[in-house]
């Protein structure tokens, strides 16, 4: 293997970042841009495949974080940084604002406290609004709403382009990406007695594809961060995966709402929200269920049924529309309410765990914070100014896509050849994704880069063509991706 996903380069690195989710890629990007040699390791075949790909895709202001917490601080910093980064990198963002809707007198009585909390979190542009204004702004809202808190700064964002942009920038800055590499053990510097391996390697990260030698280990392993922490001699926390099921509705439902419709959180649950997506769909969810299995991202009958019930109450018109997709993601929750972020200079170890459900919004704040902690602990940074982000292919609905761009089609007719009709993805975009610095490993990866196969038909029209385009992408890709493994592989 060669290229971005290659594993052939075994030179020691200053830092190994374990976990190529939105947090790990953000950290790798920050380090690589400061000339720190960096290896980004993940068990999956792509970046951003775990919690990072299956969430509510909201760019939070942090208005409802615990005031004074690290999460509150990094969310506020991170969301501001990401809003700016996204606008320059072409990551789709829509500043729709959110309405925290009260449906019972108890919830209504709670709103001033939420408003006060938002102020303490530094989110000062929130505002209480009455029923009349609420229904004027959201005429399709179900009956019985009593009022709302408006949070104008809440936005929706593309959760797929974000880690891809971070990783693309990290690669361009010299970071190495080691995918399909499951970490099976870590020989720490202490255990090695400092005698094995040349400087600056202090740790040996043992993976399914070989050993990575590095000076520092950054644990950004999300759902598996407690396992990595135990390998580093820690073991102070346990990840309790919390599954959230979500339903994506057809784009024809998009006119039913303007803002993100948030529930008033109760002691038991944060509740079900309805939100637009940057792809022009409507999202309903999530459920919240503790599950023992860290790979269990299956949807359930009761889960989907409970979402439809909630959707019927919040936005009755929604459930009359077709469902485009249903999925589930796992939040990496810990018993502690706050982030588990610390750097231990003596162990040359940074732990970045317990990010739960705010990793996307806080990612750049977390990366900045962790980089600072590492520098304080002795990691040398180049101290150079922030470089410009890469310009990513735009896959949002609000801006101009290639199929709408006459000049672009005139220059390259492949941008006029629509392959995926539901999402209007062109051959040109698929070609570009396959030829990118961080190409997809399978058609799922192609989905996250282009939106192809994500539409209402779920492949009725385009799956065969997309599979053929993927298969013809280049050397070593001549066979179509099997719908099922060949018999030999199954044995």
């Amino acid at each position, binding site marked *: 293997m060669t290229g971005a996903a290659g594993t052939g380069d075994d030179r020691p690195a200053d830092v190994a970042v374990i976990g190529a989710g939105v947090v790990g890629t953000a950290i790798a990007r920050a380090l690589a841009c400061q000339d720190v040699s960096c290896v980004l390791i993940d068990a999956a075949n792509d970046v951003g495949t775990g919690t990072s790909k299956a969430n509510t895709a909201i760019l939070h202001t942090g208005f409802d974080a615990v005031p004074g917490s690290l999460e509150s601080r990094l969310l506020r910093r991170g969301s501001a940084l990401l809003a700016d980064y996204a606008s320059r990198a072409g990551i789709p963002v829509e500043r729709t604002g959110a309405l925290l809707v009260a449906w019972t007198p108890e919830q209504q009585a709670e709103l001033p406290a939420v408003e006060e909390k938002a102020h303490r979190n530094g989110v000062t542009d929130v505002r209480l609004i009455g029923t009349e204004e609420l229904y004027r702004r959201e005429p399709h809202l179900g009956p019985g709403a009593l009022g709302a808190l408006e949070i104008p700064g809440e936005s929706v964002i593309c959760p797929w382009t974000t880690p891809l942009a971070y990783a693309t920038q990290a690669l361009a800055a010299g970071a190495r990406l080691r995918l399909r590499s499951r970490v099976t053990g870590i020989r720490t510097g202490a255990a090695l007695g400092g005698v094995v391996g040349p400087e600056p390697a202090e740790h040996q990260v043992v993976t399914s594809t070989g050993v990575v030698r590095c000076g520092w280990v950054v644990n950004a392993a999300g759902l598996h961060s407690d396992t990595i922490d135990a390998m580093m001699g820690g073991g102070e926390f346990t990840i309790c995966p919390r599954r959230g099921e979500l339903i994506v509705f057809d784009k024809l439902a998009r006119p039913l709402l303007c803002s993100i419709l948030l529930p008033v959180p109760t002691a038991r649950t944060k509740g079900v929200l309805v939100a637009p997506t940057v792809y022009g769909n409507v999202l309903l969810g999530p459920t919240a269920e503790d599950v023992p299995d860290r790979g269990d991202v299956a949807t359930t009958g009761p889960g989907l049924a409970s979402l439809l019930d909630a959707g019927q109450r919040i936005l009755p018109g929604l459930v009359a529309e077709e469902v485009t997709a249903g999925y589930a993601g796992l939040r990496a929750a810990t018993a502690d309410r706050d982030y588990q972020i610390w750097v231990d200079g003596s162990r040359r170890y940074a732990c970045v765990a317990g990010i739960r459900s705010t990793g996307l919004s806080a990612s750049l704040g977390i990366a900045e914070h962790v980089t600072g902690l590492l520098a304080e602990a002795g990691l040398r940074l180049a101290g150079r100014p922030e470089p410009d982000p890469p310009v990513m292919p735009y896959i949002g609905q609000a801006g101009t896509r290639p199929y709408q761009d006459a000049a672009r089609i005139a220059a390259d007719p492949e941008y006029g050849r629509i392959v995926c009709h539901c999402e209007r993805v062109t051959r040109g975009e698929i070609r570009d994704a396959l030829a990118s610095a961080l190409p997809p490993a399978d058609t799922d990866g192609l989905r996250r880069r282009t939106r192809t196969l994500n539409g209402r038909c779920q492949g009725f029209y385009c*799956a065969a063509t997309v599979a053929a385009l993927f298969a013809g992408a280049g050397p070593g890709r001549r066979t179509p991706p099997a719908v099922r493994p060949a018999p030999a592989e199954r044995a």
Partner: protein
Amino acid sequence: MKADVLVVGAGPAGLAAAVELRRLGAGSVVVADRDDEAGGIPRHSAHTGFGARDLRRVMTGPGYARHYADAAAAAGADVRVGTTVTGWDGLPGADGLHRATLTSAAGVDAVGATAVLLATGCRERPRTARLVPGDRPPGVMTTGELQRRVYLGGQKLPGRALVVGAEHVSFSAMVTLAHAGAEVVALVTDRPRHTSYAAFALAASWRWHVPVWSSTVVRRVSGRGRLDGAELADLATGETRFVPCDLLVFTGDWIPDHELARAAGVDMDPGTRGPVVDTALATSVPGVFAAGNLVHAAETADIAALGGRHAARGIAAFLGSGAGRGARRPAPEPVRLRVTAEAPLLWIAPNAVRAGGPAPPRGRFVLRSDIFARLARLEVWQDGRRLATGVSLGMKPDRPARLGASWTGKADPGGGPVTVRLA
């Protein structure tokens, strides 16, 4: 660019309409299709049986598709493949023209048309839209995807396959799977029995040894990384069982591809989920017509083609009347009466009548039922007045039932909506 008629969709309905429009001298006809080849769904339906009602002969799907593509070209229609209608406001401008945006490799093109025919067809509801829970492995697909993979892509699909559904298309999927090298375990349907021809079920059983598991639903899809199988539940006993399989094909459960119609603000029928059309197949927007499986998902290709031909006559009349010409907006349409079907009937098409309107396509209304009935008595009511009765023999879900059209003249144009129900 200007055209007298823009036809959206080059399947049987759109192409048959284009041929007829040209024959009637309706002027210039542009047919846009987003696929790379004209012909629509029959292109990847390798079996025979196409063309019986419209062409009075029997052909294979690809042969039938080719016939219409050639006929439309020979008739002088401008058939543009690889061309998607990416924008359309539905309401005509001050010059009476409907403006649409066409996107293709040639660029972004604006077309102004005096009349528009929507013939965008229908698709099967995928697993996600049916809210079947479980894992999300590859190997789960619709018949449409299966047939494109096998007949257009030449793919082999060895392994065990389970087909969800037991209507016409489900048996077609079974044949496709057998052709691709798969071993079909069963057809699974939540209905008490299959809804296709008895001969199909017999052939499935005798030739391919494929049983129909009725009153059975897929409760869960299982498999991480690749499909392991499906958990099935017996609706009668509640018992569940796990059936290992490598492919799971969701068939039927049609929904019109109505996005363009809805984007244009055409009135929609909640039963068919397609546009409301009168017996001329005119929608609620003057100059905009709809035909084929967009208005009745799904009928066979020949029925769709006959509908397209029928719509062409309505369009020619519209053009000939001068309603669509000139710098003024057309005169208001005569009042249309809505026609709706009552449960357990699911829908009726056409679903509006207009005073002085023509007979519907093939002189009949087509209905869908949610129940089986050996002998069903149909009644047509308006404002507490029974306008007509009819009889439907061997009524089945997923299959057409018919209602004659002689009653349309008796309906009071100033009255309430017409309902069709079982006696």
